[in-house]
């Protein structure tokens, strides 16, 4: 048990650091991340530009900091979308049961039969490749898993005595759902939302890497990595540092997710 707490602290620290860096980027970066400087093109990491400069002479560290903002913002927005709609669908389906549940779940399971990234790619073809397109596409792709988890939790909760008691006391159904059922679903929602935050950051960088994400010149870790690819031999740092940022963030989320799962939801232990 101790081991997991230790992992959780490391994971939590990495994620906290990500948020702090993103917040700092709002008020300060070492250089202007968009400023072109042709005299400083492809400079290796040095005392002035700690992580070097790119093919347009822009400071890589400053761009990584702004890229962290993009990751955090797209990750959070996607998770909020999936949590909001997934919870709403899961609550409705699990609480009403019957034919409503049957129809909703048939659709839900069919959506789950698509690989998430494929669904997102298909939706991006419709929404267009930009940050809002990504948020909608990933949000829609992740909503079915959230709906399924919430529905499962609601189905077992609604049979419990305290729910019965709340109804007997004359509370309205809406009140019972919001006051008694929803708070008891928070543990599985939190665990899944943490993993989703990681999936969203990874998918966003993969899509940006493919050129289907946030369009340049706005920096994201994925499009920086893609832009660094042609220069991999002469300027390896261009691809190396953005990838390292993504890997560290995912490691933090995985460690934190494992620790949360063990703490909040012992039933989900062993999944994934």
């Amino acid at each position, binding site marked *: 048990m101790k081991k997991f707490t230790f992992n959780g602290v490391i994971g939590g620290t990495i994620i906290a650091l990500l948020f702090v860096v993103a917040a700092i980027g709002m008020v300060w970066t070492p250089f202007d991340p968009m400023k072109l400087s042709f005299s400083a093109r492809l400079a290796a990491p040095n005392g002035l530009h700690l992580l070097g400069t790119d093919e347009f002479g822009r400071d890589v560290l400053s761009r990584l900091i702004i890229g962290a903002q993009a990751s955090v913002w797209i990750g959070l927005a996607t998770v909020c979308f999936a949590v909001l709609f997934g919870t709403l669908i899961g609550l409705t389906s699990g609480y009403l049961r019957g034919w409503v549940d049957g129809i909703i779940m048939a659709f839900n399971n*069919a959506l789950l*039969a*698509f690989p998430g990234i494929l669904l997102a*790619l298909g939706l991006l*073809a419709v929404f267009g490749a930009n940050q809002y397109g990504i948020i909608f596409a990933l949000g829609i792709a992740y909503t079915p898993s959230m709906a399924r988890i919430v529905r499962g939790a609601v189905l077992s909760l609604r049979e419990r005595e305290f729910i019965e008691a709340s109804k007997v006391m004359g509370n309205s159904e809406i009140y019972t759902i919001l006051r008694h059922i929803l708070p008891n679903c928070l543990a599985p929602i939190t665990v899944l939302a943490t993993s989703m935050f990681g999936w969203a950051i990874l998918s966003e960088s993969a899509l940006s890497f493919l050129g289907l994400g946030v369009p340049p010149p706005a920096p994201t870790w994925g499009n920086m990595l893609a832009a660094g690819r042609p220069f991999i031999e002469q300027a390896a740092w261009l*691809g190396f540092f953005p990838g390292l940022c993504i*890997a560290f963030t*995912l490691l933090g989320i995985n460690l934190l997710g494992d620790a949360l799962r063990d703490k909040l939801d012992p039933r989900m232990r*062993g999944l994934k």
Partner: protein
Amino acid sequence: MLIVQHSMARQPLDTCHRSKEQNGNNVIKFILSRMLMAVPTIIIVAVAVFTLIRFIPGDPAALMLGDLADPQQIAALRSTLGLDQSIPVQFMIWVGHLFQGDFGKSIVTGEPVLHLVLSRFFISAQIVVLAVFIASVIAVPAGVIAAWKQNSLTDLALVGTATVLLSIPTFWLGLLLLLFFGLKLGWVPVLGYVSVTTDWKAGLIYMALPVATLFIHEMGVIIRMARASTLEVLRLDYITHARAKGLSEQAVLWRHAFKNAFGPTWTMIGLILGNLLGGIAVIETVFSIPGLGRLLVDSIFQRDYPVIQGCLLLVALAYVLVNLVIDLLYPLFDPRVVAE
């Protein structure tokens, strides 16, 4: 037949009295029910792919033909697609065309979509299947050993490695491998692609790095899954019983624990296979492989809607079929699903 014999050998006590015939019926029932369960999914997949193009603003026929089409061509395609009919009729016409193998033509190259998509699909499938196979062969035993030695240094090292591997994005790992083995050491070519069917030696060399990238990543996922499901099983009474009988640890682990623990991992491997087919575009971009993922992404850039439809449909179908096959083979590891 294999399934029947296998399930007879490992039937739980309460079902031992069942005849071979009953078991055979159960197997057939099991296979049919699983196949039937895939049908609604396939229908909804088809509806979703069909609807997707209808969501894009504008005339589908004009979209399908691209910017250079003249009004006569558009009118001709409109009548072929039945665009003047109601939406359900349009859907049936579309499905009818699919059954005849007519997936439309690429706007960009004019090639028939089915041929294009299938030829690219095999390139991607080779890489994915090979990578998942190698990853499973290494990672499943590693996960079982980690569970067996729970909380030991071995376990810690294996789980730690797995968590790190799983956190490394494949496109970054691919670039690093390319930089090291391709550019620094010069062991593998950096650009281009040769199919194994034209020259198997060269083909294998070109496939080495993409396969390595994928299996290193997936190993992380499979080690953790195999460990978790083995841990669940090792807590059960029959393991204690097997140990109490005086069986060697090896026998307990591989003959008793492993067989029962493999089920969830097997399902997971199926999910990974399907997900990789959808997500392989990044790997194909890194290594410039002309696979299905790259085709899909290029078609999205070029707004080549017939090809987008074809790719989405094929990958989703492959995903459903892979999971169906995985489900159908499941009784080989756990005959209880048939008995139920």
